[in-house]
């Protein structure tokens, strides 16, 4: 059987008062999943780590969806939005995992009780509480720079997720296993665009090289473990980001060389600013866009 409209069943499921969207707790992404934390894992560390991975996905999703109505062609608009949708799903699962172990920061002081943890974390933290890397918050630039950043970000995230499939936290391992085929698709899609543009016209080559040169310094933010990552790696939960450096460098070098692009020198790695909550003004502006409606109407139902 099927409802007259899908909204009827959603409405029924939430008391028949016409409330089923943001703020009503529908479709909690970990509903029914066993969220018990295995022995020997510090829940605060696990939650902090899920925020890092979840914020990377949430912020990059927001950047990708900024191309909607603005991409060079309709197919590519749909492609970037679909990549964003996959990342949004990963973000929801990871933020819900952080919430399930009680890592909510200051968000709960601002969000009303009816707002689920994932939404409280997404909409009611300020920039200094976000733990995403600087790589994902940087503005899109032109389309060439956008696909270069998508290539770098999906290569890095795929390398992490492929290893996280063996995490001792079964929820994190399941989220990672689910994300691997999605990220593989994003990475290969971005790599084909970099090939096409880099080995394309003089203008597309010039602009894609400029994109590489703009994105490359952000690699410095990715490969130095925070204390949380070091402790969780020792506990078998996380991946030391330094362990994926060679794979990321090899993949990026392969793609850029095939695209006849110049591979810049490897930047001097630093402790991650983004993981420490030290973001640029670009993130504040992005969050104002992302969070404005929810903060303006914190108890809204639709």
């Amino acid at each position: 059987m099927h409802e007259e409209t899908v909204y009827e069943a959603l409405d029924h499921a939430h008391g028949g008062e016409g409330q089923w969207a943001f703020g009503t707790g529908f479709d909690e992404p970990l509903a029914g999943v066993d969220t018990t934390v295995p022995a020997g894992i510090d829940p605060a560390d696990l939650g902090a780590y899920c925020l890092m991975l979840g914020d990377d996905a949430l912020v990059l999703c927001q950047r990708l969806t900024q191309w909607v109505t603005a991409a060079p062609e309709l197919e590519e608009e749909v492609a970037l939005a679909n990549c964003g949708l996959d990342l949004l799903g990963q973000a929801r699962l990871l933020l819900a995992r952080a919430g399930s172990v009680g890592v909510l920061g200051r968000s709960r002081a601002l969000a009303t009780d009816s707002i689920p943890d994932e939404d409280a974390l997404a909409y009611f933290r300020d920039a200094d509480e976000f733990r995403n890397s600087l790589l994902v918050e940087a503005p899109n630039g032109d389309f060439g720079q956008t696909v270069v950043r998508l290539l770098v970000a999906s290569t890095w995230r795929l390398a992490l997720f492929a290893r996280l499939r063996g995490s001792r936290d079964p929820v994190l391992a399941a989220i990672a296993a689910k994300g691997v085929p999605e990220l593989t698709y994003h990475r290969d899609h971005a790599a084909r665009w970099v090939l096409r543009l880099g080995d394309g016209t003089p203008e597309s080559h010039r602009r894609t090289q400029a994109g590489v040169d703009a994105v490359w310094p952000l690699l410095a933010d990715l490969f130095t473990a925070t204390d949380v990552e070091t402790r969780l790696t020792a506990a078998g939960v996380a991946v030391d980001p330094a362990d994926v450096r060679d794979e990321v460098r090899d993949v990026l070098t392969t793609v850029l060389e095939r695209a006849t692009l110049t591979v810049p020198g490897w930047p001097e790695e630093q402790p991650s600013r983004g993981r420490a909550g030290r973001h640029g003004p670009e993130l504040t502006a992005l969050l104002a866009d992302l969070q404005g409606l929810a903060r303006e109407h914190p108890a809204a139902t639709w």
Partner: protein
Amino acid sequence: MTDPELPMLTLADLGVLRDVRDEDGTVVVEITPTYSGCPAMGVMRADLVHALHRAGFADVDVRTVLSPAWSTDWISEAGRRKLAAGGIAPPGRAPVRTSGPVPLSLGATRRTATCPQCGSPDTEEVSEFSATACKAMRRCRACLEPFEHVKEI
């Protein structure tokens, strides 16, 4: 119970319905998302609860299972026939899942699909993405019609 975005398929056809059982008088239903961002999960959950309530089951618990991750190999044979009849090319075999690093694929996509309109195997991909997360866009070189293809994962 059908999928909100592929209404020709039941949740069982799609491989999203993992288990239905009775636990001390409660109907426990296990479903798994196709993609992490599948926006239909909330609708499916609500549809299931509503359908079971209307069928007289008061205690219903719809649970998400994340592992093992959904694969297009779980779409049933009947589901594949219904997709093709609905103008959507069903997926081929999903890539083999390994535990190590994922190799880079830089060539043209190797996916193939038979045209659901005329049956020609001579088709080309026009976009790696389409109107929902699970599909790509193709075109038939024989009858020139565009069609969607459930991409293999």
